[in-house]
């Protein structure tokens, strides 16, 4: 099994939780003891061989890892480069989200927590959290924007069937941002017995680093699989979508210090970057503080957080993780803006060429292939973060 704990790197989080200018722990005092407890213990717990053994066993036997690295021949022909798909869509529950929730539920158990609170946007992280809570017999409370509850009803039903309590977030825009606020408030009100499983590489330190490490299994496996198939561990491009950015952080993690690997982040441009209906954070945002970390976020000149828009509920977030803000600012990452229309077309293309219906989030990463200056010798890995079943009602509007 791969070693999941990476050695110190130049993209390593600092002791105070910063990636370059971004990160930190901007939290009210009410959360300080909880976050501090986690900060002091997470590295030690993750390095414990017994923890690693439990984590690996569940990833193998429950999640179904390693996920395949699939050579997409017809897509490769269409694009004009060698395209591999890292099949996170084949994980149990249908997306990469469960890599993180398995890790965090084991972490919560070792911290002696009895209850789990989480936020969810599209419902994928909520389902992945409800799943591991059922597996471990812990109480689960998921906050979800009331608008998202309507548009992602099947996932609400899945969470309820798994025994979770789904609480509508009715404040603000009633979407992911507000669900995150409500989950934080719940944690403030229940500081002793509850662990907050954040679903992305966002939030106060140590969450971005912890979640990136749990998700780093994606690039750890990719290195080994690519070596078998191509005789090299490093692709020319690693492409992933970024909302908060957890699948991208996992896909990039073991390549951060390999300058030959171009790291491509596909952001959701919605109806177009300049239309006012977009979630292209790096194109539209400025540095600021959101959900406990300093990052790049979409905001007014007065520092009020603005409402993002994307056809994909999983990318509909006004910020990005601080690691990604650092990749953007340092130039290490290549950031593309993909419109709704383009993502949907890319989703249809993969369905017809390879027989794989991708999640709308992952379709943004696929669309980015058409924006890159690829040549026939290039080897490209796309992180196919989730499957598209949840998005059928959206896709079908575009049929014929």
């Amino acid at each position, binding site marked *: 099994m791969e070693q999941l704990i990476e050695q110190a790197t130049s993209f390593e989080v600092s002791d105070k939780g910063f990636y370059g200018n971004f990160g930190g*722990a*901007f*939290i009210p*005092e*009410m959360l*300080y*003891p909880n976050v501090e407890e986690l900060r002091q213990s997470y590295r030690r717990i993750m390095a414990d061989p017994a923890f690693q053994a439990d984590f690996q066993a569940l990833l193998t036997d429950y999640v179904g890892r390693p996920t395949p690295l699939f050579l997409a021949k017809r897509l490769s022909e269409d694009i004009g480069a060698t395209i591999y798909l890292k099949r996170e869509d084949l994980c149990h529950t249908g997306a990469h989200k469960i890599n993180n929730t398995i890790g965090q539920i084991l972490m919560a158990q070792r911290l002696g927590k009895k209850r789990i609170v989480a936020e969810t946007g599209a419902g994928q992280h909520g389902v992945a959290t409800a799943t591991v809570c059922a597996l471990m017999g812990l109480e689960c409370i998921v906050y979800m924007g009331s608008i998202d509850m309507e548009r992602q009803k099947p996932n609400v039903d899945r969470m309820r069937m798994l025994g979770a309590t789904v609480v509508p977030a009715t404040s603000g825009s009633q979407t992911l941002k507000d669900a995150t606020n409500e989950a934080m408030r719940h944690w403030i009100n229940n500081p002793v017995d509850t662990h907050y499983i954040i679903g992305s590489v966002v939030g106060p330190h140590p969450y971005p680093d912890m979640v990136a490490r749990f998700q780093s299994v994606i690039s750890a496996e990719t290195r080994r699989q690519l070596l078998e198939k191509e005789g090299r561990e490093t692709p020319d491009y690693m492409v992933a979508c970024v909302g908060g950015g957890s699948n991208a952080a996992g896909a990039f993690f073991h390549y951060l210090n390999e300058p030959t690997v171009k790291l491509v982040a596909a952001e959701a441009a919605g109806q177009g970057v300049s239309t006012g209906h977009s979630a292209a954070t790096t194109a539209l945002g400025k540095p600021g*503080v959101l959900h406990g970390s300093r990052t790049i976020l979409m905001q007014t000149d007065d520092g009020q957080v603005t409402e993002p828009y994307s056809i994909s509920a999983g990318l509909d977030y006004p910020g990005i993780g601080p690691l990604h803000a650092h990749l953007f600012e340092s130039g290490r990452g290549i950031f593309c803006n993909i419109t709704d229309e383009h993502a949907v077309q890319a989703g249809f293309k993969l369905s017809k060429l390879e027989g794989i219906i991708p999640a709308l989030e992952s379709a943004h990463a696929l669309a980015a292939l058409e924006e890159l200056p690829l040549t026939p010798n290039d080897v490209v890995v796309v992180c196919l973060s989730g499957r598209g079943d949840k998005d059928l009602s959206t896709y079908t509007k575009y049929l014929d």
Partner: protein
Amino acid sequence: MTHEPLTQNRINDLFAQKSERLLNVYFTAGFPNLDDTCTVLRGLQQAGVDLVEIGMPYSDPVADGETIQQSNMRALDNGMTLKLLFDQLAGCRDGQSGEPVTVPILLMGYVNPVLQFGVEAFCQKCREVGVDGVILPDLPLDLYLSEYAATFRQYGILNVFLITPQTAESRIRLIDSETEGFIYMVSSASITGSVKGISDSMRAYFERIQAMALKNPRLIGFGINNHDTFETACQYANGAIVGSAFIRHLEQEGPSAESIRAFVQTIRS
């Protein structure tokens, strides 16, 4: 340009003169109406409130419960901005539109709008319009001390930090030694407006902090919503802070001087 030393500050002056039963009332700037800021401020001063905490409305107030969140949303919808708030406050202090406001003022809010305004520009503006202190719950203490404390000190603006029942003693000592003005004791692990009554475990926490003999005065907030809770808080601290209860009152009874006087009377007596 030279500034007065930090100790010349309305908050410090207040605590030098009065150390018991202080009442600090919170309201959100621009609520219920955009131009109510001075009206409410003057009403609170006339009603004999000792300090006033003015909320700078924010889109994502994570430490606040529903009542204050909604007042924030309403104020933003009304068009409130930090820049406008400073303009309004300048007018209240100099008495352009009525009796000059002399009560100590704190601004309470979240760090992002302050960062966008610019920390130094913010402190300078606070000084200019007569803001005495700020409460920014999501500004980390270590970052404040390493990056911003010197700027706040240069402009004579106090930065008040929160402690909770879970805050470690060593951290309380650090806050006490590194900050001045007062310490904001959050009564229990909670967001604003969600605490019902004062429990035995809260009393135990109040006693524990009382016994620490801190150099700073202490005000207790969260869950102080009537005469009984105010009196209880005053047994263990120099006074108390009322927020959500006053926002509900403004919502129902409006911001007239009589309405505000009636509210303050129910808390005091």
